[in-house]
């Protein structure tokens, strides 16, 4: 199971990386891309959008199914990875490199409330 220890996670299969400037970089986990299969479309949020924790902010679609992507914390979108939207298969190839969007959190401490690698592993193993 590929769950990098340096990242945090949500129950809904997003990974979160805390950047030096305090922003959160968000993508989908390797487990999520495996469940979805070949990705063919990614709808990214708009830069400047603010969102609540758990709000649906993006969509990834595989040949098989569409899946909503949720904000891991309340905040505003400060960047999106257009390269991932242009090549959705890059998420299949390396889910932890092909990030989707970057969030400026309203509360920096929300990071601590996210699952760590062990917690996420437990979550997906049920």
């Amino acid at each position, binding site marked *: 199971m590929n769950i990098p220890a340096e990242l945090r996670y949500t129950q809904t299969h997003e990974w979160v990386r805390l950047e030096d400037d305090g922003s959160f970089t968000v993508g989908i986990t390797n487990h999520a891309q*495996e469940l979805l*299969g*070949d990705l*063919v*479309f990614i*709808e990214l949020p708009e830069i400047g959008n603010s969102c609540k924790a758990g709000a649906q902010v993006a*969509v990834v*679609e595989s*040949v*098989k199914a*569409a899946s909503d992507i949720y904000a891991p914390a309340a905040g505003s979108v400060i960047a999106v990875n257009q390269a991932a939207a242009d090549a959705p*298969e890059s998420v*299949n190839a390396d889910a932890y490199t092909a990030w989707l969007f970057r969030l400026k959190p309203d509360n920096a401490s929300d990071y601590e409330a996210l699952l760590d690698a062990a917690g996420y592993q437990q979550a997906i193993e049920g």
Partner: protein
Amino acid sequence: MQKTVLNEAHRALGAKMVDFGGWDMPLHYGSQIEEHHAVRRDCGMFDVSHMCAVDIAGADAKAFLRRLLANNIDKLKQPGKAFYSVMLNAKGGVVDDLIVYHLDDTHFRIVINAGTTDKDLAWMASRLIDWKLDANIAPRRDLAMIAVQGPNAREKVWKALPEARAASAEIGHFFAVQAGDFFIARTGYTGEDGFEIGMPADRAEAVWQALLDAGVAPSGLGARDTLRLEAGMNLYGQDMDEATSPLDAGLGWTVDLVAARDFFGKAALQQHGQQRQLCGIVLLGKGVLRGHQKVMTPQGEGEISSGTFSPTMQQSIGLARLPMGVTFGNTVQVEIRDKLHAAKVVRTPFVRFGKVLVNF
């Protein structure tokens, strides 16, 4: 969960397995898009042993099928000739779709869907009793089936099974031949050339391995769905069901309302006529069409019955049940997550023999 005789072979190849109508089947072996391309460009194979072959034999076998099927069994004159048909209920809804092979005048083989097998067998048995006809309906659970599809499919089958070459080299599309243990049919569900091969279940693993050794790409249900949709072929349960008339599901070409012959469901079809039309649609922008999305047209609302992303066209495509009066070339609006997206109505198939046939 039911398993085909190739279940272990799929797992050995690292297949992602899914529950498909109660059967444990491979969805893909890594990438369903790569498997799709393999079938369009070279050759892929599918375990279709979950589908049930049923032999219908006896003095009244032909008379039985003449009443059971919406297509006219009298069209199958030559030994080995096959066609596609639906069987209907009293309301003209589709009980199932199937392929019939004419073996001889008292012996036919049909292949029905996996998820409907029990229902179909019960349905056929009840028809046989009602009509007091003399025929035997025998499900052939002793057979496994492998579909080998793609421009190089036949050559690779002959490489893997050289003993089958002589008997199957000359058969045309929609013909089948018995070659020793192998029932070899030039049919498929992909829009490509190829064979569907029935065989005794205990030979399937060795045949699968021989095909792998010949360079045939194992392909799962994921690729099977994108291939059939590009080929404009219906999927039972999605594009039609017991509440859908074949006329409204784009299957009017399989229904013979002209001949004097009566068949079950004919009266209902004649009474209701065609209410809707099944058309191809291509999404013009980004996104993915899915079943049950609403389609807005100047003639009223329609619905997508099957939608996916076409790996060949690199665009989303679907089949949609639309109001009468919408025509090919029209632009319609599809509702995806509460937003309207433009799509073009096109004639199917989208793709045939490796070539894109629609303009969008």
